[in-house]
């Protein structure tokens, strides 16, 4: 349901034609690691003339935990616990590409039921991540109430994830070869099967209904508001060539008009069995980036609704040795993370842990385009554009 006010012919309130006659020397403003709206510890050193910025230089590394080095001293089951802490807003979907890469190297066939459960939980993680964006972005622009409504709806999805996996942010539910089969390895705990709990289907259907209603509420409350449109329309327009040259992926690339979604091209999860559209924006400004993510919540809710009815029965995990040694080989698997393309380049030399694990995160490339995009922009727009990129510092600094 598009908004009642069609975005084309609503004229832009004002254009920022700030003509500088008075010669004022620039000021370097540290939008520093400690700032209310840098989504974490990102520091922007901005050369500012009055309110207009003419050069922004992000300083990274405040959140660098050195995951690629840690991965080399960990065994494969331990890395999944490490990896879902990269983008902590969408916990579950970080593990998927790594597990898929290991399974590909070990040539393990994942049972259907495990694939469907993984798909349902990934789409729920996407809904949770996009709700955080839906709550935090209006906050950047000054509206305080959408945050509370977004967090309330997100609570529903997190409770569902917790009822299945036990953890809300860091579910750690994926095992190589499938999903966590049982609570333990002893005679009694082996029988405590970690399958979907009773009443899960009914609860998910109710939650998805309320989430679809919440999306319409957000469309009126945030998208319809003229002040929001004035603050986000035609601001931070990112052409698609620049986006792909910098490796910007995910909702931001789709907002620039590129209809490219890794869910439909690679088959790391059975997305082919469901029909869903890929929302794209027209002119790649902040409004489109916000609107594409709102549509994606709707699509994910639809996918989950279809997926619950079609979950096949069967084992939860394929036959996998207790001590996992991945045979020699090298492969790169990428997945559609809520923030963009997340990929793992896994080089294994047959040891207990990988020889080298390159983690390609979405937000790192997404914000590498910011210095180009923030030339000559006013400070409030800097925050509107940065907010629309929905990055998480763990994702950026790894």
């Amino acid at each position, binding site marked *: 349901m598009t908004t009642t006010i069609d975005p084309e012919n609503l004229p832009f*309130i*004002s254009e*920022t034609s*700030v003509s500088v006659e008075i010669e004022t020397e620039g*000021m370097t*403003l540290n939008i520093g690691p400690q*700032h*209310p*709206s840098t989504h974490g510890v990102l520091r922007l050193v901005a050369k500012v003339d009055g*309110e207009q910025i003419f050069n922004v230089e992000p300083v990274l590394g405040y959140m660098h935990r050195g995951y690629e080095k840690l991965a080399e001293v960990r065994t494969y089951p331990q890395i999944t616990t490490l990896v879902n802490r990269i983008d902590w807003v969408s916990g579950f979907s970080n593990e998927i590409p790594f597990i898929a890469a290991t399974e590909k190297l070990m040539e393990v066939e994942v049972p259907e039921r495990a694939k469907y459960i993984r798909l349902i939980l990934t789409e729920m993680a996407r809904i949770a991540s996009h709700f955080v964006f839906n709550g935090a972005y*209006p*906050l*950047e*622009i*000054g*509206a*305080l*109430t959408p945050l*509370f*409504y977004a967090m*309330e709806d997100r609570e529903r999805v997190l409770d569902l994830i917790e009822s299945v996996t036990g953890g809300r942010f860091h579910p750690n539910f994926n095992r190589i070869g499938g999903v966590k089969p049982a609570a333990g390895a002893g005679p009694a705990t082996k029988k405590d099967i970690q399958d979907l709990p009773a009443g899960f289907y009914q609860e998910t259907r109710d939650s998805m209904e309320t989430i679809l209603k919440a999306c319409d509420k957000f469309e009126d*409350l945030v998208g319809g*508001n003229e*002040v*929001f449109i*004035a*603050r986000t329309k035609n601001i931070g327009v990112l052409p698609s060539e620049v986006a792909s040259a910098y490796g910007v992926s995910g909702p931001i690339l789709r907002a620039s008009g590129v209809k490219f979604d890794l869910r439909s091209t690679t088959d790391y999860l059975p997305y082919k069995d469901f029909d869903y559209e890929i929302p794209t924006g027209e002119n790649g400004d902040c409004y489109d980036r916000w609107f594409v993510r709102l549509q994606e919540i709707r699509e994910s809710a639809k996918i989950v609704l279809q997926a619950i009815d079609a979950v096949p029965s069967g084992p939860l995990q394929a036959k996998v040795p207790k001590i996992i040694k991945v045979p020699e080989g090298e492969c790169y698997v990428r997945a559609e993370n809520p923030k963009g393309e997340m990929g793992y380049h896994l080089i294994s030399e047959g040891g207990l842990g990988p020889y080298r694990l390159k983690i390609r995160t979405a937000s790192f490339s997404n914000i590498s385009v910011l210095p180009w995009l923030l030339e000559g922009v*006013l*400070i*409030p*727009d800097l*925050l509107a554009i940065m907010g629309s990129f929905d990055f998480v510092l763990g994702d950026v600094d790894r």
Partner: protein
Amino acid sequence: MSFGLELAIKVGVIAAIAPAMALALTIIEIKGSAYMQRRPGPLHVGLRGLIFPIAEVIKFIQKEDIIPTKADKSVFKWAPAYIFISVFGLFVIIPASPTLIVRDLELGVFYLMAISSFSTIGVLTAGWSSANKYSMMGGLRAAAQLIAYELPLILAVIGVVIQAETMSLVGIVEAQKEWGVPFVIAGQGVAFVIFMVAATAEMMRVPFDMPIGESELVSGFLTEYSGIRFLLFYISEYINLFVMCAIASTLFLGGYHIPLLPVEWVNFYGPLVLIGKTFALAAILILIRWSFPRFREDQLQNIAWKILIPLSLANILVTAVMKVVF
């Protein structure tokens, strides 16, 4: 009664009413916004949170009042006083009934506009003297915004003055009583909207709260203030809200007058009616605060200079023509 005693009583009454009204509006805003966001708001303070503002006042008084080393000490210390004085000054001309008024100035509206532009100095000095880039930008934004919205505020009121043919607020309310219909219906509806928009900008409330833009400027010119100085800013913000809504209801909604009630007891129901109308207006402003994002300051200037001022000039023209015709 000698003038001194009368003056002392009046100042005493105002010194009691103004903070009480500010605390009442604070609790309405905090509890109201909490319920709007489906959370209970402050609960454990006492009486299910209703005495929260008193707790806050005490908290701010006993908090340490930090003055940054590089700040311009004397200017930094005096900044909150300017705003406090300008906001208190406005109480002089608000009529709770034809006699219940500090002083019914002939040039009431003129006095009103002069005093209300005094707070700009307070905000600018606060921003400039805190030796902090963010508060300096907040101060400059505030100065530009307050000056830009001074004009529509004044031009909107001129329409009312033409229609009521007097500048004294009691006279304006009497004119509305004689017209039988409050001015907001009798031709001054547009002026009322302009006045409310300009008043929101004067009070630096959302959607015009760029000077205290939390997500951009940390908290604008208030960044370096703490302790009792921050309390002065905080209380004067809510007194400003009360005063502006009181003036709006006096000029446009008929102040202490209600058509049905008998005129003799105006001294009794007058203040209640005035406070009722003021709190209604304040409630609308509170609802606006929690459902709007924030403008960018160049959009804000555009709205002031390109929409509000031409509109208010047109309104004056129409009122003048109507005055001549009827």
